[in-house]
């Protein structure tokens, strides 16, 4: 109301003193601008979301789509007027995959940038390194990484949205049981993702009545795995599982074909991208892997509640940046779980936001339907993965 009364008064003055019309006009503009700016500062302090991602370095194919997704949706949310009238502000740092940098960037986000919460940690290594700081400073963190150790045991302030390697292992074993393949040969790399997947496969095998008859490993930078595969050929394995991401799984796939080994091959969700099919070429035909629904969005039944979410994300992302990857999808899930929690909490009070994240129920994201609880800070179940097979250079759901 003061705004209106000021203008009315000013207009009266202008009428009585016509010669100062011009100054009065500019004074009005100035006053309006000042008031406007003041109003903006009062009513809409930005909500600061911090992020630390691996945008460069060996895991950049994970972090790059994540950052693009975050930026795209923060912009979209702000275009619609922000959250409860507050614009979102994204502050992000690139760790380059160095865990130690993750620690210093998280400190920087908390102390220097004073963010309200953090979405990020592209890799498990980065996230695990940052957890002690996050717990100490009591700030909600939603990780985009896969490792089960992030939420097991449950940590008060830490949540995650990406599928775990244990889910991938379980999904593969489930499919093996259906096909009655019980003698398995493992071949894995020496990276963090590979090692953690390897561990989960060994741990879960007995539960599914599966015997590991061969267990080979390679270096992720190796350019030939025929030695290991020849050894596997010598075993009585019925099926081969390769757990890894990047170049190496493509080489394994190609080497198998070159050696004329016809055993069925399972890969992990780490290769659920078009790049893998391009790298492995013909040899990729018939390879099965657990993948997030995003890569097969069009094939989902129309009754699937995830379908519209996936197609909408895909459309928006592809219009701007090109083919989607499941990893960018994790950033979407993380951001919207955060936004939902802030909306429900009615502000950025850290404890309230944390409690609201924990109460996330039935949130339909790209990775699946999330139902968090005090015991489960991820909230996805095995249905979140689809078993897909590569056919004619594309993905096909085989369930």
């Amino acid at each position, binding site marked *: 109301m003061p705004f209106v009364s000021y203008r009315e008064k000013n207009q009266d003055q202008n009428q009585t003193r016509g010669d100062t019309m011009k100054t009065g006009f500019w004074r009005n503009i100035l006053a309006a601008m000042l008031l406007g700016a003041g109003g903006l500062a009062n009513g809409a302090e930005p909500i600061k979301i911090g992020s630390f991602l691996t945008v460069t370095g060996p895991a950049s194919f994970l972090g790059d789509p994540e950052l693009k997704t975050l930026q795209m949706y923060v912009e979209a949310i702000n275009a619609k007027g922000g959250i409860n009238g507050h614009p979102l502000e994204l502050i992000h*740092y*690139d760790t380059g995959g*160095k*865990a*130690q*940098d993750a*620690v*210093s*960037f998280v*400190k*920087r986000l908390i*102390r*220097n940038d004073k963010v309200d919460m953090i979405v990020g940690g592209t890799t*498990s*290594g980065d996230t*695990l*390194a940052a*957890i*002690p*700081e996050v717990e100490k400073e009591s700030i909600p963190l939603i990780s985009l990484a896969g490792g089960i150790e992030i939420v097991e045991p449950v940590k008060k302030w830490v949540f995650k949205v990406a599928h775990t390697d244990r889910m991938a292992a379980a999904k593969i074993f489930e499919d093996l049981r259906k096909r009655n393949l019980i003698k398995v040969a493992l071949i894995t790399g020496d*990276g*963090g993702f590979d*090692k953690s997947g390897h561990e989960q496969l060994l741990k879960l095998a007995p539960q599914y009545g599966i015997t590991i008859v061969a267990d080979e490993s390679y270096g992720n930078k190796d350019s030939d795995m025929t030695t290991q595969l020849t050894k596997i050929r010598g075993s009585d394995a019925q099926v081969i599982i390769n757990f890894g991401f990047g170049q190496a799984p493509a080489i394994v796939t190609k080497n198998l074909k070159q050696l004329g080994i016809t055993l069925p091959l399972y890969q992990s969700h780490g290769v659920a991208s078009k790049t893998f099919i391009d790298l492995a070429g013909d040899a990729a035909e018939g390879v099965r892997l657990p993948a997030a629904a995003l890569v097969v969005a069009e094939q989902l039944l129309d009754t699937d509640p995830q379908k519209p979410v996936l197609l909408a994300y895909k459309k928006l992302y592809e219009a701007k940046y090109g083919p989607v990857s499941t990893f960018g999808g994790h950033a979407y899930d993380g951001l919207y779980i955060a936004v939902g929690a802030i909306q429900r909490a009615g502000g950025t009070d850290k404890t309230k936001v944390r409690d609201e994240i924990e109460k996330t129920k039935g949130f339909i994201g790209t990775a699946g339907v999330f139902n968090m609880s005090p015991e489960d800070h991820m909230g996805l179940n095995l249905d979140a993965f689809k078993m897909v097979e590569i056919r004619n250079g594309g993905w096909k759901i085989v369930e």
Partner: protein
Amino acid sequence: MRLAGFYVFAVAIILLPILFQDNYFVTVVGISAGLHVILAVGLNLLMGYAGQISLGHAAFFGMGAYASGILTTRYAWPAPLAMFAGLTVVGLIAWLLARPILRLHGHYLAMATLGFGIVVHVIMVQATHWTGGPDGLSGIPTLDLFGWPVDSDLRWYAVVAAAMLLAIWLSLNLIDSRIGRALRAVHGSEFAAQMLGIDTGRTKTQVFVVSALFAAFAGSLFAHQQGFVSPDSFSLMVSVELVTMVVLGGMASTFGAACGAIALTLLHAGLVVFEDYEMLIHGALLMAVMIFMPQGLFVGLDQAVRRLLRRSGN
């Protein structure tokens, strides 16, 4: 009078957190700058004064850090004891290594120390059972100094600042002693030094061990302060960065090394905001310093200030 510079520096370090309370660049970046100063001052004893290059100093830093990390998390040792054990082990390894390695000169010495650094890094990555492998070791408890837990940024600043001042003070005194003069003689000409009756082998070994101990001490503090260590922090690149700090600041000057360490740490923290251009600006600045201040940042700035004073005097 000899230590006048030191006292001025000490007062500045104490005043900083009082003037800038709760400032990220003082209480967080400042801690990492302080640790770098300890490392650079230690390396400078070896490189700047004795003229022996080491491209494997991150290994000693890492060994100190992992010794503290492993002993406190896996065996629940008290932190000071773990730190002492780490220092003993590193000192012993450095002593064993020094004799054969320091007989080498120039490129060969660089190669040998480089190799040592890589071997230690590989062990950190592969010995998963002990070190936690590439994912690192987390949950390292913070330091507890006789019932005074070092659990806030400000307390850590105090501890690291004290350690840093101690390192600088030790270095300044060492350089001004008989050993220091022997070191400089070795740097000038090893043969001439021998002719003067200096046991060059012993002198070089001593300084190598002292330098490694400085690094291990910084490593141990680093592990407790971060609560987490991973092999990334002790890679070859870190060794190279340490050498850069010493050279950038100005060789054969304790304050030069300290200056280089602080400048490089602040530069890194300050340039992060430029994202993709960070490395570009970083490289350009380093090149500019080396071209326009070939004797290093410290001497260069010192001369610039003097010139300015003289001009204003006229």
